[in-house]
């Protein structure tokens, strides 16, 4: 059933994109600016419909479609959705919190999601990974990593110019 939902979502996205593609302006005889992506979308819609029909036909007889959120009770799925949220939160906080602080916290969460449960090892691991990457990228490769704001920015600058 989950596969049908995923393919259904892909189909909806393709229909939306096909509609959006009709708004792309055309310049003279060069019509492909609009019709190249539109053509791709139309073929995709056809293929996805074929696939969905096949998937639905393969379902056991008597299967009823109902809105069921019981998959959220499974621990693996919960961890997975938590990691989606965590990744987006990290991306949003990175420019404000700076690389060092945000990464240490992010590493702690990823370790927990990957099954680590000993706080001492988790903190040590997070700090070591963050420091190692900071050294490699900032000092070794001269890449400017996000500094954050306020005192975090001052600390980052101080660390960057340490070497």
């Amino acid at each position, binding site marked *: 059933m989950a*596969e049908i939902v*995923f*393919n259904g979502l*892909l189909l909806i996205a393709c229909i939306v*994109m096909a509609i*959006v*593609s009709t708004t*792309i*302006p055309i*310049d003279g*005889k*060069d019509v*492909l*600016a609009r019709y*190249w*992506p539109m053509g*791709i*979308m139309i*073929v*995709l819609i056809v*293929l*996805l419909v*074929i*696939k969905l029909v096949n998937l639905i036909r393969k379902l056991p007889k008597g299967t009823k479609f109902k809105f069921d959120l019981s998959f959220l009770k499974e621990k*693996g*799925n919960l*961890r*997975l959705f938590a*990691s*989606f949220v965590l*990744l*987006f939160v*990290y*991306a949003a906080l*990175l*420019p404000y919190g700076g*690389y060092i602080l945000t*990464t240490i916290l*992010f*590493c702690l969460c*990823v*370790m927990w*999601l*990957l*099954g*680590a449960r000993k706080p001492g090892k*988790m903190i040590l*691991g*997070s700090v070591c*990974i*963050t420091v190692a*990457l900071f050294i*490699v*990228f900032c000092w070794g*490769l*001269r*890449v*400017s*990593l*996000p500094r954050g704001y306020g005192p975090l920015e001052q600390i980052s600058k101080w660390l960057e110019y340490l070497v």
Partner: protein
Amino acid sequence: MSLLWLGIQTIFRPDVLLWIAAGVTMGVVFGAMPGISATMSIVLCISFTYSMDPVVAIAFLAAVYCASITGGSITAIMFKIPGTPSSAATVLDGYPLVQKGEAGRALSVALIGSALGGLVSAIIMFLLTQPLMSLALKFNSAEQFMVCFLGLSLLTFIDSKNKVNTFISGLIGLFLGTVGMDRFSSVPRFTFGNSNLLDGITELPFMLGMFAIAEILSNIHTYVDFSAYSKENQAKLTKLASFKELWSLKWTALRSGVLGTFVGIVPGAGATIASWLSYSIESKMSKTPELMGHGDTHGIAASEVANNAATGGAMVPLLAMGIPGSNAAAMMMTALSIHGVMMGPMLLKAQPEYLSATFTSMILANILMIFISLLVARVFAQVLRVPYYILGTLITMLAVTGCYAYQARPFDIIIMIVGGIFGYYFKKYKFNSTALILGLVLGSDTEYYLRRGLKMKKYDFFRFFERPIFAVLFGVFAVLVIYTFVRYFIDKAKANKQQAVTK
């Protein structure tokens, strides 16, 4: 020969040699780790090359690419678990030798075989690339469009199990290639007012997501069991294979090397198909077929020579025409384009030093690999004692930091996360990530050449057929389409017949 001499002059510098050694070590270690494919090894190592000189970056990445395939054979032999899918055939004869207490013999045949495969393919690559480049220089836009399109189509025809899924994946990749500012009319397409999308979907962050983040996400969903890699399960390295034994494998090595290289040239076929094909041919040609699968060194050599030879093969269409033959080659293409390397026929004319550096570093990396792999094999169990929550977090952070460092743009991390979520569900529902990546990498060029070709032919598609090269390429495409349909109906008829017999 002048190209080879130029390569030697470019590569034999202390810093380059040091980076090649580092690349081989990292490649072998990554390749041997479960869940880290050759593609992911390159993806994770790209971020180290941002501030490198292009020649050093080429040498380093070529070393990682060659060595990561070889690394997979270490765990295949020592633990009966292939580090990369391409080493699965090695288990069949490698592990029985370990059980007989001859781990050293199995490992030395595998490592020397890998190196030989790499060398054979590097030589064939050297010989084939230049004539192909000269041919490709004669292509006009219409023919370049057909080459890109054929490269994409071949992939779909090869994957016979999930044809519809592969088509869908390739088309999604092609669509993602259309996002951003149109190269002809400068009109934004599918950007939804977001200025970050005007440059399109940046390939590197998306690939980092598709491979590194997707792998971590699946390990978060289902925890990995590392108990099979405990030190107690590792075989001890014993006496290595003798020169006489290695010499007896010469025809196997040559056959598998040539076969592996040509399989590698076909887009989408790759190292895994090469190693299985070579193994099955070897079992048919063997004078003692009853020994195959029970610890025959010919089986190990056939698999390992072929899978490493495929790496060089995949570089031929990439270097000559700018069409990657595999996921890993697509990754190499993205990585090298960051350094301003122009893949395709112009490489020979405009940047011969880069082309020669690729050849020479692949040859050198394959030789260095034998010694470094043997050292790594001795300490490998120690590396695997690092808990996965540390390794997984390190991979995630390497991907995230490498992604940010690419353009210092937080939006790239968003692209990477979306790529990761896509990659996870793609893997789960058996879509084809290679097709999507090739679609994304080639999509923009395919559209560009088609539109440019049409403009030059005054928007008359049938004028594309005026030149025989296009007609030949189109003919190949038509034959493939017909073959696929005929094969599909024959298979379906066979299945129906079998079903009727069973009933």
